[in-house]
């Protein structure tokens, strides 16, 4: 977990910046992006083990972003975060990431870290 590199993507800057700060306090190296375009740029170097994506991101939804990120870097694994609790979003998100890697906001940071650990062990 200590060497894990994480990218948080959500258009809520205060959310991702605070989450990144809290993850860093726990020894996890976390960067954040507030747009899909920036997230894709950051992935050029393929340095992230895990990307935590909001299902709904301006101009490109999280599912589409995940597909593009996978094309750039196949080793990155994904966790979805969503503000929506709709059945449709759950179906789509859990299909893409697996139901256990789909978290509803507000998420618990310890639960998020636990999910990251599970993903890394896969």
């Amino acid at each position, binding site marked *: 977990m200590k060497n894990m590199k994480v990218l948080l993507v959500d258009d809520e800057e205060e959310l991702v910046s605070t989450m990144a700060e*809290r993850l860093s306090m726990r020894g996890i190296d976390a960067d954040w992006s507030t747009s899909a375009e920036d997230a894709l740029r950051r992935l050029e170097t393929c340095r992230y083990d895990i990307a935590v994506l909001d299902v709904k991101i301006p101009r490109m939804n999280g599912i589409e972003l995940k597909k593009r990120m996978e094309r750039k870097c196949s080793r990155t694994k994904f966790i979805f975060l969503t503000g929506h609790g709709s059945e449709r979003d759950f179906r789509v998100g859990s299909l893409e990431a697996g139901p256990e890697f789909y978290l509803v906001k507000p998420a618990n940071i310890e639960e998020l870290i636990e999910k990251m650990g599970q993903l890394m062990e896969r």
Partner: protein
Amino acid sequence: MDGKCGIVGEAGLQFFGRITASVSHEIKNVLAVLNENAGLLEDVVLMAEKGIPLDTERLKRMAGSMERQILRANGIVENMNRFAHAVDEKVQEVDLNETLSLLVALTRRFADMRGVTLEPVYVDSRVLLISNPFLLQNLLWCFLDFAMEVAGKGKGLKIVADADDRVVRIRFAGLERLAERDTPVFPSEREMALIEALEADFSVDPEVSQVIMTLPRRRYI
């Protein structure tokens, strides 16, 4: 309930559902930020208990963030409340500028998702009309929703409201994709039913990339 009434009712429910879903999403985001700030505060306290000095700048930053989110949530709830009260009276005097600014605020997230910037232009300080407030909001939403879908590359969508003695006009400009073939059918049966219910009219002009809605200043019922 006849067919037209049924369509108007269904359109209203759909509109209400989409707006409340968007508002709940916004509130969830506010709660998520507050949740992270509360968690960070707890982390900082735990660190202090272990002898790490309190970083007052960090505390100030957290307080600022929480204050901003509370103001944001207050604005969201106030808008939601104004929106919900649109069903109180079937017919009343409405300020179109106020209605438009409320709708622009309620639609902001939909616009952000599509990368569209909404630019309302109010020619007069007040534009009063007698209308059904909820149906009016619903019809304006339908036009806005369509306009966002066909906004051009720059994604700037101008909404210009003006009036004369007889009618009010709302012009949706910057719809550069209006002439393209893959645009949604507009107006659909739902919009036509609302147009009829409000005695409104409309024109679509792909050459100047705009759609104009006109409404009578006074609707006799």
